[in-house]
């Protein structure tokens, strides 16, 4: 009966078992991407029960995101925003990245954001020996109308003026909130089956032909409809898993590796990342990867139905347009 719209599955089971079905549905709506049966009005259900010929096309609502997913998602938005902007403030205190255990002025750098005063203030980014002029944006940008030497511009840092101590206060406060939020999300997602049910791709989804088709569909901005829209597509699953299982834990671990206190407690971290300065560089690269993810993520939200997507992450309700079983 896979093609049946969700409420009819239970409508046909009749009066006595409907209670049980509703109870288990209620639990599952709390936990993940499940139909919103329990919230459907009785009248609607009996109407469906007495009428197998539902009018198509129609719009149904499913419970797209559990309350924990929604709360942790928005807390994550808050935390990552503050972490990024205060992180850029911290980076500005020494805008150079190295590889290995040590690195300071004069040591070979992987990346430098700097200012050159030879011919008027000019900013540059130097990546492994290649220098790119970036005046106005990176290296030199305007502060109160004056070109000022600072790696990231004042609109991109918290606080806007150079204040490492304040930047660190914001950073570590939100780092704690982010870690606690992450623990809640991971604990919930493992116990509820969110990872297994909603995020783990199936063998079929990972086949090159399927992935190839999804990539082409995405490129043509054709997004899944009807039954397929009820769950994440394979590219979504892979992108979310990469963020949740790789990038975000990497941010925490490389951040901790920069701590001399943590390095004494957990020396293996230093070995894993090849040194404190390598960890700092990976922290920066991973943060950049997250920024790219967010840009693509927001673009996809807008292109695949802005309000429906945002509503589903706020209230949980996600509208699905159904053409009908034979469409």
């Amino acid at each position, binding site marked *: 009966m896979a093609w049946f719209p969700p409420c009819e599955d239970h409508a046909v089971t009749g009066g006595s078992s409907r209670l049980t079905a509703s109870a288990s549905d209620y639990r599952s709506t709390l936990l993940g991407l499940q139909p919103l049966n329990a919230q459907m009005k009785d009248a609607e259900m009996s109407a469906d029960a007495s009428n197998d010929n539902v009018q198509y096309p129609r719009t149904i609502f499913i419970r797209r995101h559990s309350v924990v997913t929604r709360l942790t998602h928005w807390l994550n938005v808050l935390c990552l925003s503050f972490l990024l902007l205060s992180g850029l403030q911290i980076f500005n205190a020494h805008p150079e990245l190295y590889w290995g255990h040590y690195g300071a002025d004069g040591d070979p750098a992987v990346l430098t954001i700097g200012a050159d005063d030879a011919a008027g203030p000019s900013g540059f980014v130097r990546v492994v020996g290649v220098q790119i002029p970036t005046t106005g944006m990176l290296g030199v940008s305007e502060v109160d109308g004056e070109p000022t030497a600072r790696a990231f511009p004042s*609109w991109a840092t918290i606080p806007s003026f150079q204040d*490492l101590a*304040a930047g660190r206060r914001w950073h*570590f406060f939100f780092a704690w909130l982010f870690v606690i939020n992450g623990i809640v999300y991971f604990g919930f997602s493992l116990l509820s089956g969110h990872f297994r049910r909603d995020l783990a791709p199936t063998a079929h989804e990972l086949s090159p032909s399927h992935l190839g088709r999804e990539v082409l569909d995405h490129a043509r901005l054709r997004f899944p409809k009807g039954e397929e829209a009820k769950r994440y597509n394979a590219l979504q699953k892979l992108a979310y898993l990469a963020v949740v299982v790789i990038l975000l834990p990497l941010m925490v671990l490389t951040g901790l590796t920069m701590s001399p206190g*943590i390095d004494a407690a957990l020396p293996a971290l230093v070995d894993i990342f090849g040194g404190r300065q390598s960890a700092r560089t990976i922290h920066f690269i991973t943060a950049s990867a997250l920024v790219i993810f967010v840009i693509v993520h927001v673009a996809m939200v807008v292109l695949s139905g802005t309000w429906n997507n945002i509503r589903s992450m706020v209230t949980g309700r996600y509208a699905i347009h159904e053409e009908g079983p034979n469409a």
Partner: protein
Amino acid sequence: MSTFLTRRRFLIGSSLGASALTLSGCDLLDQNADVANILRSAEQLTMKAQRLLQGRDALAREFDEKDISPSFRVNGTSVPDSEEYAELLEGKFANWRLKIDGLVDQPREFSLADLRVLPSRTQITRHDCVEGWSAIGKWTGVPLGSLLHLTGLKPTARYVVLHCADELEKTLDGSGRYYESIDLIDAVHPQTILAYQMNGQDLSVGHGAPLRLRVERQLGYKQAKYIMRIELVDSFAGLWGGNGGYWEDRGYEWYAGI
């Protein structure tokens, strides 16, 4: 540090001036005392979590000779600007004495020669600046714990305060003088030493001659240079800004483990 004064004056000027209007919401929040206190609550959490993970004696990594940085940046003060220090330097610190007083059973003074004959510890460790850079150096000195063993501690002693010869900011009341403090857990940690040698040579002026602290599980600003006096206290509330250190009085965390 004239650049610091300029920046400080600039900050004061700009916050009083018209540019205050352009401060973003976060800047306003940042200057709110309640917000600052909420943000600072994370510092306690960090310290408790790190202490729990470390236990008392977890050691900072020690490196090999080959890992030593080719250059080690001189940070903060490069030469203390006082007649007293200039005279001590000219006399090759023969007249320098380390005073240990406060809440100790027996206040003591040590000359550099006294310290050199005490059992020493040599360690090659990574110095991590709060700004983000790191350098590896070899340090030789007397474990702070063994000096405190010689003086004895009153039961009320809780913190070790290091008073330094350098003034990082010129002020009329002397509040720009460098000082630092650590608690007794860090003070008796095996790698916490008062170093008189760096990379096999007498400590240079830039790196804190004649004596500097190494407290290896914390950031660079805790590694006080130009130590003149060590004072045992039960609280650092009465010292200068009351936050336990020069940078702490300027907004940085007292526990600098991250």
